[in-house]
């Protein structure tokens, strides 16, 4: 109350560039956040609803979770998703990290063009990449299976990992490596004992990101998976085609909780290391 009066009196003194101190800005931010969160929160809320036929609140219940848990094909899809995400994360983190490091460290001719090409998987519509992968696998005679899904996931997560690693290396102090070499360490010792430890938070963030991207992907998975190879999102999609029951909400909520907690961990790690060396 008093704050409001004080701020009104001092209105003239508010820096004109402090947009956040203006009510219309608060309104815009609030509106945007409501728009971003309302649908997701609603979806999660109704996974706990006891009523089946419509999205009308009739009381709290966990029965949709029980139903989703006992759904064997959903179960299998979940295992498939974890398998795909885990394998593709290991490979894409290793390859992406090396790529990010090389891009940070070395200059080579046509580097700009090269970077443009490797970042294409991030910017072209997913459907284009999906159909390109299907056509390629078909043309070289590889049958679609979970392996083709993994191969495609690795291809589109490598650039993301490389970006994260590069951002991490931007804060690296090169003199540490020079000191290590001056003190007699070999090239590889310097890498393992100086550079690599510095990369670790970036590696964790990149790995989590690539896990989440793989776990979340629907379009590319949908096209590159063999018949009957469901992943979790693909299974949710096919459930949606038949009927929209709170069971789908429950399954979705499980996926949301997993991805959001992994994302949060990745982001917290990132914000830790942007604050600089340990204080």
């Amino acid at each position, binding site marked *: 109350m008093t704050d409001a009066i004080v701020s009104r009196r001092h209105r003239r003194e508010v820096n004109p560039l402090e947009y956040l101190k203006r009510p219309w800005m608060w309104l815009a931010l609030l509106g945007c956040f409501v728009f971003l969160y309302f649908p997701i929160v609603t979806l999660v809320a109704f996974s706990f609803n006891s009523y089946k036929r419509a999205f009308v609140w009739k009381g709290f219940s966990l029965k949709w979770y029980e139903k989703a848990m006992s759904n064997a094909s959903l179960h299998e899809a979940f295992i498939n998703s974890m398998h795909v995400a885990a394998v593709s994360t290991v490979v894409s983190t290793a390859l992406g990290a090396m790529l990010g490091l090389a891009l940070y460290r070395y200059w080579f001719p046509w580097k700009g063009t090269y970077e443009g090409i490797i970042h294409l998987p991030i*910017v072209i519509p997913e459907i284009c990449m999906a159909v390109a992968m299907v056509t390629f696998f078909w043309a070289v005679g590889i049958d679609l299976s979970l392996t083709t899904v993994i191969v495609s996931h690795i291809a589109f997560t490598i650039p993301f990992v490389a970006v994260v690693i590069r951002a991490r290396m931007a804060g690296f102090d090169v003199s540490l490596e020079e000191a290590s070499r001056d003190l007699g360490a070999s090239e590889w010792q310097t890498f393992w004992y100086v550079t690599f430890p510095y990369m670790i938070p970036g590696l964790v963030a990149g790995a989590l990101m690539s896990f989440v991207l793989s776990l979340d992907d629907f379009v590319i998975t949908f096209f590159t998976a063999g018949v009957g190879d469901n992943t979790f999102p693909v299974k949710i999609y096919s459930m949606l085609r038949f009927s929209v029951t709170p069971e789908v909400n429950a399954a979705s909520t499980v996926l949301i909780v997993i991805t959001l907690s992994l994302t949060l961990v990745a982001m917290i790690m990132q914000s830790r290391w942007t604050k600089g060396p340990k204080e």
Partner: protein
Amino acid sequence: MEDWRKNKLPFTIFMGPATFWLLVFFTIPVVVIWVYSFGERGPLGQTYLAFSFDNYLRAIEPIHLQILWKSIWIGGVSTLLCLIVGFPVALGIAFAPDRWKNPLLLVVVLPFFTNMLIRTFAWIVVLGTRGVVNSGLGWMHGALDGLLTLTGQPDLMGDFVPLELLYNNYTVVVGLVYVHLPFLILPLYATLEKLDRSYLEASLDLGAGQWRTFFSVLAPLAMPGIVTGCMLVFILSMGNFLVPDRLGGTDSLMIGNLIAQEFNKARDWPFGAALSFVVMYPVFIFFAINALRARRQERARAET
């Protein structure tokens, strides 16, 4: 940065594997589908390699041109709405006190990490005929009805008929804006955060109002971020498959759905390939221009 020629071995070890993977499992597939786009479809749906522009010509036949045009139109409207919704948000965060920036950004990007399919489905929960909005309206209808009955006017309202909010072009636009908003806010934020604020202060000091400063100083300075963000949102909206597939009606078919159809039911891969290149050519051109500009700037910087 070191020259690669001085460190050929480590350079090759680090660059090699990822480059190989992306070459084999991204670049070559794109080249293969590009070759296919000039091919011909056999009677059983198989593909014969050829060199014809027939598929591209088919893509601009009226029936397909109409879908292409619709994709551009819906993509454009979504992009514009994203800009209108996203600009104040990016501005607010960029000019927020430092300790607020990261939490606010986190709030914006967090939904982006939940599955796109689920975010699309969420709108069915909200807008469906049995969804939250209709339930709310139905409840209000019932309450009003009860009130009228109490005042002695029963049956005045009639039965509640749920509104058909889903499965039209508007919901597709809403869904696309919802799904792609962070793609606009992030590049815009990055530009606004870096820009030199003394220009804005000068403009305000010299008597220009906030609006004038916004349109004559801030917007031009933020143009790189606006262009990148809008381009990203436009490309991704226009080529989106999931949102029109789940939220659109029978007339909301967009180019992404058409591509998917050619690769699923219709099984005309060369035509589908040509269609996906209709989407990808502008992307390539845009990024080529961007890369050229970056190169020129780098050279200019090197010369000074």
